[in-house]
């Protein structure tokens, strides 16, 4: 990230500094926290001149800072093979790597007063999904940082929801996932922070050898939502399947920035990120696949697609490849457009009314991200997307 020229502190930045100074002691903040905040303060709220934030200028967008109040956290239930603590693991504050770093990661960690530390034992197969909910009170600002460790050969599903009632507020939450060797892990993240809500969050994923990891991000509400996902392949033979769905209407701004780091050979990754945009909504997808010099035989494919329902929506996409190994297969694709008239014609010619035909096509577009998912989970989240579509196309 490029360091910046001289800048003046914005009122929001000043408010954060004052809050940190005032509450630091009460929160038990030590030298490490101060160092985190100092790092944030050196850069401040990222703005469009920082490449990773080109489309989401927080300096402009975040004008006020809400009064702090901790998240009300509902932790996953403990069971055989699953240990859960309502506490902040030091890793949640310290872990940084390319794709998971920068002022917002530091800001979230500096203030984090809640968090979940959970681990799934090696070899454990957890059949019921582990569920965590971070509920932010209306109009408040909350920070949390969580760590989940999945032991070797573990099989589990984790569903995290960050929610807030309509009416604003700021939720800031980071999740670290340490996925061991030969595991089979599914992670679903649902951001539903209501009208007027702001969410800034990050997901740091490290994958062990032969790990099979699947992730789905669903953003169904929130005025300003930015998610940074960093996925690092540490052991060969691993496979990452990362998907996302932005559903945005009115003047919402949803940004997902993804960094996939193929650091070792023989791994494969698939990325599929979709956006359905109505009114004046804006969707941003920035994805980058890095294939390091030793990561031969990497197989990476990234796809981003935006479907526009209104002529005032905006879709920005930046799918990047950075490749340093010669024996790899990497590709990306990106499409932006509206509902295909020929499909619409096909359905209408068969007697389906226009609105229904449109709804059918949009839901077919959006629901692709749930393909091959566990049926109950797919039904649960396609329900979220169907509900949104019904409100916008009904």
């Amino acid at each position, binding site marked *: 990230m490029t360091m910046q020229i001289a800048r003046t502190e914005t009122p929001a930045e000043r408010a954060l500094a004052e809050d940190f100074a005032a509450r630091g002691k009460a929160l038990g903040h030590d030298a490490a926290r101060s160092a985190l905040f100092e790092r944030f303060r050196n850069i401040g709220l990222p703005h469009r001149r920082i490449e990773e934030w080109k489309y989401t200028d927080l300096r402009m967008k975040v004008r006020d800072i809400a009064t702090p109040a901790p998240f009300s956290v509902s932790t996953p239930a403990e069971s055989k093979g699953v240990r859960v603590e309502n506490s902040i693991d030091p890793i949640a504050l310290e872990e940084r790597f390319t794709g998971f770093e920068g002022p917002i990661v530091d800001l979230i960690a500096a203030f984090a007063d809640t968090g979940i530390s959970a681990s799934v034992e090696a070899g454990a197969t957890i059949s019921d999904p582990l569920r965590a909910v971070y509920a932010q009170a209306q109009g408040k600002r909350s920070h949390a940082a969580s760590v989940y460790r999945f032991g070797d050969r573990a099989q589990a599903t984790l569903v995290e929801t960050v929610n807030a009632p309509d009416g604003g507020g700021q939720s800031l939450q980071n999740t670290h996932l340490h996925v061991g060797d030969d595991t089979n892990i599914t992670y679903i993240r649902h951001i539903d922070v209501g009208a007027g809500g702001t969410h800034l969050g990050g997901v740091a994923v490290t994958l062990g050898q032969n790990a099979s990891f699947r992730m789905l991000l669903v953003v169904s509400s929130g005025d300003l939502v930015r998610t940074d996902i960093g996925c690092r392949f540490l052991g060969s033979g691993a496979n990452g399947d990362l998907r996302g769905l932005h559903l945005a209407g009115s003047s919402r701004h949803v940004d997902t920035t993804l960094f996939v780091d193929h650091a070792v050979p023989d791994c494969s990754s698939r990325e599929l990120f979709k956006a359905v945009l109505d009114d004046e909504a804006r969707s941003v997808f920035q994805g980058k696949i890095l294939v390091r010099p030793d990561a031969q035989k990497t197989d990476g494919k990234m796809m981003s697609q935006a479907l*526009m329902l209104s002529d005032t929506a905006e879709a920005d996409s930046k799918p990047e490849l950075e490749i*340093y*190994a010669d024996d790899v297969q990497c590709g990306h694709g990106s499409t932006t457009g509206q509902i295909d008239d020929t499909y619409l014609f096909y359905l209408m010619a068969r007697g389906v009314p226009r609105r229904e035909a449109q709804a059918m096509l949009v839901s077919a577009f959006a629901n692709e991200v749930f393909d091959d998912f566990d049926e109950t989970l797919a039904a649960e989240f396609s329900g979220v997307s169907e509900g949104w579509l019904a409100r916008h196309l009904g």
Partner: protein
Amino acid sequence: MPAVRETVDQVSEIDVDKYKYGFTTAIEVDKAPKGLSEDIVRFISAKKNEPEWMLEWRLDAYRRWLTMKEPEWAKLHYPKIDFQNLYYYAAPKSQAAPKSLEEVDPELLRTYEKLGIPLKEQEVLAGVEGARVAVDAVFDSVSVVTTFKKELAKAGVIFCSISEAMREHPELVRKYLGSVVPPSDNFYATLNSAVFSDGSFVYVPKGVRCPMELSTYFRINEKDTGQFERTLIIADEGAYVSYLEGCTAPMRDENQLHAAVVELIALDDAEIKYSTVQNWYPGDKEGKGGIYNFVTKRGDCRGRNSKISWTQVETGSAITWKYPSCILRGDNSRGEFYSIAISNGHQQVDSGTKMIHLGKNTSSRIISKGIAAGVSQNTYRGLVSAHAKATNARNFTQCDSLLIGDRCGAHTVPYIESKNISATFEHEATTSKISDDQMFYCTQRGLSEEEAVALIVNGFVRDVIQQLPMEFMVETQKLIGISLEGSVG
């Protein structure tokens, strides 16, 4: 899949240590003092006998440049350029506006002969009927000679050096210069606006199809000299012109700077084809020397149904920073960008295009092929954007990259921005997606997918390549013949 043997051999044949054009011409030169200041800007302007408004234009740009910072966003690493350690003007001494070829220094003529550039009108590409090319030869800071001027004038086409155009056609220069790339555009364009010394000027009047290919051949010869040329091409309503550009430089241990600006303007129903074979000295095996090539090229499809197409074959330069762009302002206008960028040794390429859709029913196509070998870095960086009023904008982009060896890098950085519901943008980075029906047609007739892709990519660029002077053509064909096998996104 790794690169096939044939490809490796072909790329190594054009490796940096095989640079053919690295000789120097011993010739007396007239130089401005080293460094850059207002006095140097005045010196250049005076040398060119420029009108007062032009000097003011330059000084404005220079003052603005002083406040600007070098762009650092590109994936390029090089030591800081000392802008005070360069000569901003160098011209062959004997060159006092020669009226004909006989008056040109024979040493210069020999140089162009060695480079294979035809300066004698009657001898143009002997044996190739009808393939005549008019050449503007730019040596360091000045245009040495422009061929076929009389014949072009018969058709009403103006083809001359930009300094001459400023004297002979001030109204055209004043109207169009800086209208596509304003003096404040970017660090290097602003520097160019202050110190540009020569370049080509083309005006094709209404309804005229330019009777021959136009071309400019740029040669940097002097040590420690920067070359700052400026090209301005205007195709008036219904006009057509095809323009070629070639460049070479001697082998030197020091890096040399080349910062050009090219502006194209296509009015209603006009078409401009602009082709570049860029073969500046790339530096040696250890990465010593070579040209720093910072170029701003932009075409403005100002009129309805206008078309601008950029074709580039990039093999030279230590550093390439270049994004030939199209502003699709007129309704139904079309922009195209075909590029082959091959980097070897320690070369670094950061190149691509911008397609800015502003008008209705505009379309653009981007085909880019990057091949990296040695320890080079090859980046495609492109922007496709649709303005809110760009109804029915269409874009198709395809970028292929190929790595030869495991010490080089190939990168793709596309920006896709759509503010219009009816805009359809497709970006593909796989070889199988050129156009399914074309592929089907070829494969169905027994061609392998490889051959079919090569054939189609060739087809896109062939009509331009065939018009290139023989010397370019052979080289370019060789580059394009490189197999696509082992392509990555």
